[in-house]
């Protein structure tokens, strides 16, 4: 007691002049230096490696078939993601439907396409002709092999598989919206379709975008699987070249560079998409809506404008 009071008195006495010395994390600095040295060593062993032909990497980086391969990779990724997103929306809504048949179909779809390997699905679509030599409606049929080009087979295989994953992501997003939102909209007399499109989905998008970004980046790399059905995407193009000149590591590095570049661009895109669907992210978010309300105010000739995004 006495000691405490004495201590406190001393502390009070010197109080205002005390300087605070933050703890120095010496261990942290040591670990950082060691880690940095390891990274530099690794980098040096690669860059200075006489077995890597850097000139070849520079040459093939912009070689025509590589560029065409990169383009096909982007096309496959974007198209498969778009189709997958639409399928995901449809199957997510079916899965939440009270109609037992629709519900069952959606469950079966998700079960099947998530449960079988992507590779098997790709090979299956490419070889569809063994099952249906000709496809079409009624008397109008075409040879399956003329339709089922490697690109089409790849697109179908990737989209259907993606749709199954997207269905679960979309469903989680919709379930993540507070049920009070749907109730309020219902009480206002909105129809179920209006509620889904105007209230639920816009809010679900905020939950759907981050995992969808993940899926898109995964898809970018999964497209390399289509080399088994000889669609000439990025990795296949690289393989075709190194099969001839044996610059295996060099061409893998070229392909990896391109995958990294595309992934980086996609990540930046995702960042802006997230901002767009997050109304409170400031001036850049929901620019459309902010601009619109600003325009309506100007058109009414209101002198005092109310800041559309609130806080300065």
């Amino acid at each position, binding site marked *: 007691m006495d000691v405490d009071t004495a201590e406190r008195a001393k502390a009070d006495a010197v109080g205002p002049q005390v300087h605070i010395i933050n703890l120095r994390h010496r261990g942290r600095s040591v670990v950082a230096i060691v880690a940095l040295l390891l990274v530099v060593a690794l980098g040096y062993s690669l860059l200075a490696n006489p077995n890597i032909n850097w000139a070849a990497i520079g040459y093939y980086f912009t070689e025509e078939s590589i560029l065409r391969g990169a383009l096909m990779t982007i096309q496959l990724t974007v198209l498969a993601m778009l189709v997958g997103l639409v399928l995901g929306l449809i199957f997510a809504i079916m899965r939440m439907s009270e109609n037992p048949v629709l519900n069952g179909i959606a469950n079966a779809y998700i079960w099947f396409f998530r449960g079988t390997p992507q590779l098997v699905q790709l090979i299956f679509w490419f070889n569809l002709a063994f099952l249906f030599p000709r496809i079409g409606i009624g008397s109008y049929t075409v040879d399956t092999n003329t339709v089922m080009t490697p690109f089409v087979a790849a697109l179908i295989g990737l989209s259907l598989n993606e749709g199954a994953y997207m269905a679960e992501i979309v469903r989680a997003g919709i379930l993540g919206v507070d049920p009070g939102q749907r109730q309020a909209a219902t009480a*206002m007399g909105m129809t179920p379709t209006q509620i889904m499109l105007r209230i639920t989905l816009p809010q679900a998008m905020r939950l759907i975008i981050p995992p969808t970004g993940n899926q898109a980046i995964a898809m970018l790399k999964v497209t390399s699987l289509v080399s088994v059905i000889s669609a000439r995407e990025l990795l296949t193009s690289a393989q075709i070249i190194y099969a001839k000149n044996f610059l295996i590591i060099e061409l893998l590095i070229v392909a990896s560079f391109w995958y990294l570049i595309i992934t980086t661009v996609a990540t930046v895109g995702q960042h802006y998409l997230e901002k767009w669907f997050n*109304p409170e992210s400031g001036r850049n978010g929901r620019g459309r809506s902010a601009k619109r309300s600003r325009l309506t105010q100007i058109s009414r000739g209101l002198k005092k404008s109310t800041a559309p995004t*609130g806080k300065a």
Partner: protein
Amino acid sequence: MNVPTWMVEAQGVRKNYGDLEVLKGIDLQIPPGSVTCLLGPSGSGKSTFLRCINHLEKIDGGRLTVDGQWMGYRLLGNKAYELTPRQQAHQRADIGMVFQQFNLFPHLTVLENVALAPRIVHKIAREASEIRARELLARVGLHDKTGSYPRQLSGGQQQRAAIARALACKPKLMLFDEPTSALDPELVGEVLDVMRDLASGGMTMIVVTHEMTFAREVADTIVFMEDGRVVETGPPDQIFGSAHSERTRRFLTRVL
């Protein structure tokens, strides 16, 4: 066709959640232009009954009409046919509702929140709906918050915006489900002021509340509910002064 004398008429309304019977036969008549406060302990079925009125909850027995219309059903001969979701939506369109948790749409500005239903439910032009939304927001004291998003407002401001949103469709009936229960004590007054103002303007209001002072001052009729039944109905003076029922008296002495 007989002209309805009651804005809301309930006869033997029953509602079950599985085996649990939450409404055990509610009889109630609410005249147009009146303010009715539903009081009672939690779990007494007040909120459930309120949600049955605009058919957010489907009733399991009895009949419930608003402005002479069966909610959720169309009567043909001696059969009641359930309405489609679109028809139900149409029935709800001129009944306003205010929720305990406000339930403003977070992805829309306050102005868009208020102007949305008039535009997409009542097909009023954007310009006209926004002009009306501004008027309503001014009326609840939020003229300077039109461009804000709900999360940027205080609880009291959010609830006032929610009231403006419910008023935007020119409702013939307003339902309030514990509108001040989620608010900090110092913000309750501003919301009650708006409701008082609305009541004096002649709006038909049904309010589930725990604000006894408000109920006593504003209500024309107090309905005391307990255990899924209406225990007692009467003017505030009678209920607060000399309730007939022992249970009502016990509840009121506990909360006052």
